């Protein structure tokens, strides 16, 4: 799936990087690295929701990032 949105650090538990999607959903990012991982960056993420994933931040469904680029 492809999701467009804004990168935000969620201050929940020990914290987690999230994607605040344009449709209002919030995903917790897994495997996102690089310059784009900064507060407020507008990005397009290609990846898939990992329903089996468990996290301590529990900020939303875990989105496993395959590719991403600036929007």
């Amino acid at each position: 799936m492809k999701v467009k949105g804004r990168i935000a650090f969620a201050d929940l538990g020990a914290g987690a990087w999230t994607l605040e999607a344009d449709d209002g959903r919030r995903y917790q990012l897994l495997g996102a690295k690089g310059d784009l991982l900064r507060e407020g960056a507008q990005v397009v993420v290609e990846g898939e929701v990992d329903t089996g994933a468990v996290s301590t931040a529990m900020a939303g469904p875990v989105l496993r990032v395959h590719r991403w680029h600036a929007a």
Partner: protein
Amino acid sequence: MDHGARVLNLSLGGFGYSRVIENAVAYARGKGAVVVAAAGNHGDGTVAYPAAYAGAIGVGAVGPDGTRAPYSAWGQQLDLLAPGGDKRKGDEGGILQATIARGAPGTPVYASYQGTSMATPHVSGVAALLFAAGAKTPGEVERALYAGASGPGGWTPERGHGLLDAAGALHALGAAPRVDWQPLAASAAILLLLLLSLNPRFRPGGALNVLLDPKLLVPLLISSVGFFVLRIVWQKWVGAPPAVVEGLSLPIPDWERIVFGRGRLAHPLFYSALIPILVALPAMGWKSFRPVAAGIALGFAGFLAYAAWTRAPGLSWLPFHFLALPWLLGNALVSAILARALLIRREKA
């Protein structure tokens, strides 16, 4: 728990249902361990797993003002609220704790965090306190936590059983089991309405006489408030009552817990007119059994009406929460009509 753990704190979760994990939670609980899990920080009305499994205590978070924090999940499987912090006004609103550092899980730090992950260990701590104070089973711990929780009383999807209260839980552990009399009052009100709706010719000798008939009164009590004497006597003379005894001492609609185990959601067939109808079948040809069947039908009518009134609990199998209310009201009505028919036939025959 195979190594003696009594309290499992799971400050984590996800959205995928897993039968393996559900069985693991049930296994832990069966071995005498309490499983406490975080409801989630996604802020909507779905509780994450493992908190959503029937064997786990699902914990949501409140901020310093005691109201549910905006990030905290809530919903059908929420059991309790506990302090999880709310940092919208700064770090002092969080839970100050010795914990793992952000981005460096190997490094211990002292930091202010917020989340249902922070609320969960508060409940785990009180669970341990309850075991230390003499609780023998997870059921006892859960009951004391829920009965001792502070708030308006009763379960709601927004607050669970209320806000964790350590002193309240310890007090509830020693106290006699709480008996909820309101369903009986609802049954009595329904009986009064039924008697008024009957032609005086068929009225079974006035409300007081009907209520004083033990053949009607005892089934009415057992179906609306439960055979609580059984549990009180058991606790006094035998010790901590086993699950079957606890189940049998509940109102008949809650006997589903004997069959299906503990669960926050009631089974819709138990919370329906099915049992009164089944009990009424032999009463058609067996006159002296009619007061018993009428008592059970009246008890169910009162119990279901009261359950509808308090908007609790949710029903399993019904896809939408809003279907629970018409289901409970409709079945209360059927039970009341059945009770009326049984009361009339009692006099005519």
